[in-house]
């Protein structure tokens, strides 16, 4: 057994040491595998980044109330009378002043200019009251100050500032005939709210002629389990034809559509490219076996087994694939990780997010690389193991 292992180790070492003899061919396999991994991981880290931004936005103990059938905030309408009924609903947490933590909000779309394309893009303008920030956690003003109630002032999320023009701190924006001042910048724990513009609810309502209407109502629940209580209350009141969801579920649903799409693009492309890389790997390994035909035959003649030739070839292929996978993962990390971009979300407004590579994703990339290396090495390895000694020595 020991001599068998020594044989395998010796042949594997010979294989690996001979890689520089086929430098360009081996390099092309490494590059091909690396590019497959880059394409896969770029798409997966994009999907992951988008998903994180949205899932980080929703709290399990915040309920979001939408008009029945409205799948997103922009499509929803909730009337003032309905908001009053929700104020009285059971299961809702109360603030220090004893008032229920219920935030009726207006959600409108306004134009901004996307910095990298210099084209118009849909940005959400959210009218919120005093309760807006209380219902949400993690809202922090990082520059300037919060808007003052009753004024034409707005605060913008950090993402708006980085990706869009026209909303810098201290600048003035005109909607209809009204001028608005940008007085602050806020962070919201990397959530989708950082892609929003916030202003005082009554001011937005009156300036956009939406006096008695809201888009959504958010309510902080006493605990996540109170969602069922609130739901039952709303379902039993015929005046409330509304859907109640937890904010977490709402955003998870929105995220899944876009991330599904990105993943459905990324995997087939990477797999198609993997076939191209596989052709390269097979080619390289068959060349390796051919180039070492005499050597393999000599080893066999002096008593080495066919299995050691098999393992040696397979390991050579796997090593090339692992190097390719590692290079690909490192390149993705350097080129894409943390890259900030934006796309249209389910509410038809821009969502700013960053590519996020994780060890689990790198694992998927390396597995794909190993599959290429395994198949690319397997068939040439069989050839190496079965090579007739006489034919090899005659070369």
């Amino acid at each position, binding site marked *: 057994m020991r001599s068998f292992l020594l044989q395998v180790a010796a042949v594997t070492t010979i294989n690996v040491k001979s890689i520089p003899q086929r430098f360009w061919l081996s390099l*092309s*396999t490494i590059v091909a595998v690396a*590019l497959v991994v880059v*394409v896969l991981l770029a798409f997966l880290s994009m999907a992951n980044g988008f998903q994180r931004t949205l899932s980080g936005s929703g709290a399990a103990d915040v309920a979001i109330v939408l008009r029945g059938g409205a799948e997103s905030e922009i*499509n929803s309408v909730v009337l003032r009378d309905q908001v009053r009924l929700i104020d009285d609903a059971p299961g809702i947490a109360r603030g220090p002043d004893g008032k229920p933590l219920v935030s009726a909000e207006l959600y409108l*779309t306004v134009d901004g200019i996307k910095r*990298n394309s210099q*084209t118009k893009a*849909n940005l959400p303008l959210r009218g919120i009251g005093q309760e807006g920030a209380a219902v949400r956690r993690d809202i922090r003003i990082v520059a300037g100050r919060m808007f003052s109630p009753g004024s034409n002032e707005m605060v913008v999320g950090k993402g708006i500032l980085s990706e869009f023009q026209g909303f810098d701190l201290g600048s003035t924006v005109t909607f209809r005939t009204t001028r608005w001042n940008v007085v602050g910048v806020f962070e919201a724990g990397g959530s989708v709210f950082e892609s929003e513009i916030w202003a005082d609810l009554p001011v937005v309502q009156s300036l956009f002629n939406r006096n008695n209407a809201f888009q959504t109502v958010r309510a902080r629940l006493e605990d996540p389990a109170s969602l069922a209580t609130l739901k039952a209350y709303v379902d039993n009141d015929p005046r409330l034809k509304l859907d109640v969801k937890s904010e977490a579920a709402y955003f998870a649903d929105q995220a899944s559509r876009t991330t599904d799409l990105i993943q459905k693009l990324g995997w087939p492309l990477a797999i198609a490219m993997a076939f191209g890389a596989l052709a*390269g790997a097979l080619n390289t390994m068959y060349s390796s076996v051919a180039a070492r035909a005499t050597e393999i035959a000599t080893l066999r003649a002096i008593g080495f087994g066919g299995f050691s030739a098999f393992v040696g070839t397979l390991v050579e292929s796997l090593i090339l694939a692992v190097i390719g996978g590692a290079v690909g993962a490192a390149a993705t990390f350097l080129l894409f990780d943390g890259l900030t971009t934006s796309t249209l979300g389910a509410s038809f407004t821009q969502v700013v997010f960053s590519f996020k590579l994780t060890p689990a994703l790198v694992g998927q990339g390396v597995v794909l690389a190993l599959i290429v290396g395994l198949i690319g090495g397997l068939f040439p390895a069989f050839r190496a193991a079965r090579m007739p000694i006489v034919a090899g020595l005659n070369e």
Partner: protein
Amino acid sequence: MNDLVLVRKNLFRKKLRAALMLVSMLVAFAIFGVLAAFQRSFNSGQDVAAADRLVVVNKINFTQPLPVAYFNRVRGIDGVRQVTHLNWFGGYYQDPRNFMLVFAVEPATYMDVYSDDIDVPPDAHDAFLRERTSALVGEAMARKWGWKVGDHIPISSSIFSQKSGTHTWDFTIAGIFKNRKPQIDTNFMVFQYDYFDETRSFTKDLIGWLALQTVSPADNDRVAKAIDQMFANSSYETSTDTEKAFNKAFAAQFGNIALMVELVVGAAFVTILMIVGNTMVMAVRERTREIAVLKTLGFSGRRIFGLVLGESVLLALLGGLPGLGIAVLVTLSISQSLSNFFPGMAVTPGIALAALALMVALGLATGFVPALNAYRLRIATALGRG
């Protein structure tokens, strides 16, 4: 034995190696074809836009409404040939996941402004004007759901509701229209604005946007400025753009899709250059003695150069063309299910030509170094080896 036979025999001397290179070429061009079709569909809004069509939207954002009165006021502006107005309905059929493109329009002017794009049969044209609750359905949409003229279809809205509280409107199909240009997608339907405005439970006399045709594209700038000036400082200011510019900006909202496509296609082609290029160098090196013999027989260096280049170009074509064929099959099979998001996805003659040019270019690029090596090969050194 002419040169082509020689080229072919050389290429397939090692069958397995040739097959592997063909596969990698095939994969690269299948990816190219599908992604080019995808990108074309993504940009189709710009390609189908008529040069003389302008879009008037609310200056704050195109999802904000405009007063219906603007329709008549824009009509009166000099240089406007015809104007119509449209509303986004947020439509779906039976299940919110069956999202559909549905617009409430001013019927007579709509069919006029878009007469170069869609072909409405005369009886459908008249029936659509006559019957208040009727709808015109595009051929692709009718085919998708198996609808015929005269069918009653319940279409729901994810935004609007009727005064009765229901989200569903019933329409009678007045007719089915076809496209007049192949790149126009017909997976949408239109119905009468008047019916919509009377029945919806909230907002009244507000429309989504105006679409107009100018007398000539030369008037575009002047007309656009006149419209925006007319409504400046009102509570509904407008932003007027050409249809092309509007569609381009809208597509850009999804992100830099073009860059994404270029990166992936670029990665696929770099892979090919590396794999096929190196393999060709190796294949020609193995033939060193043989090339020396050919030269001894009187083959000129240029002819040898051509033989090797011919081999790599033949390889690119033999791998690339079936790859393009696969791209055609893939786009055909997924275009139906993606028609809502990526209408008219297809490998067009333009894409095929670009692919052909790329095949030749890749063939030349992968063959150049080995061809040069063969060209420079000196008989004495080559035959002296080994």
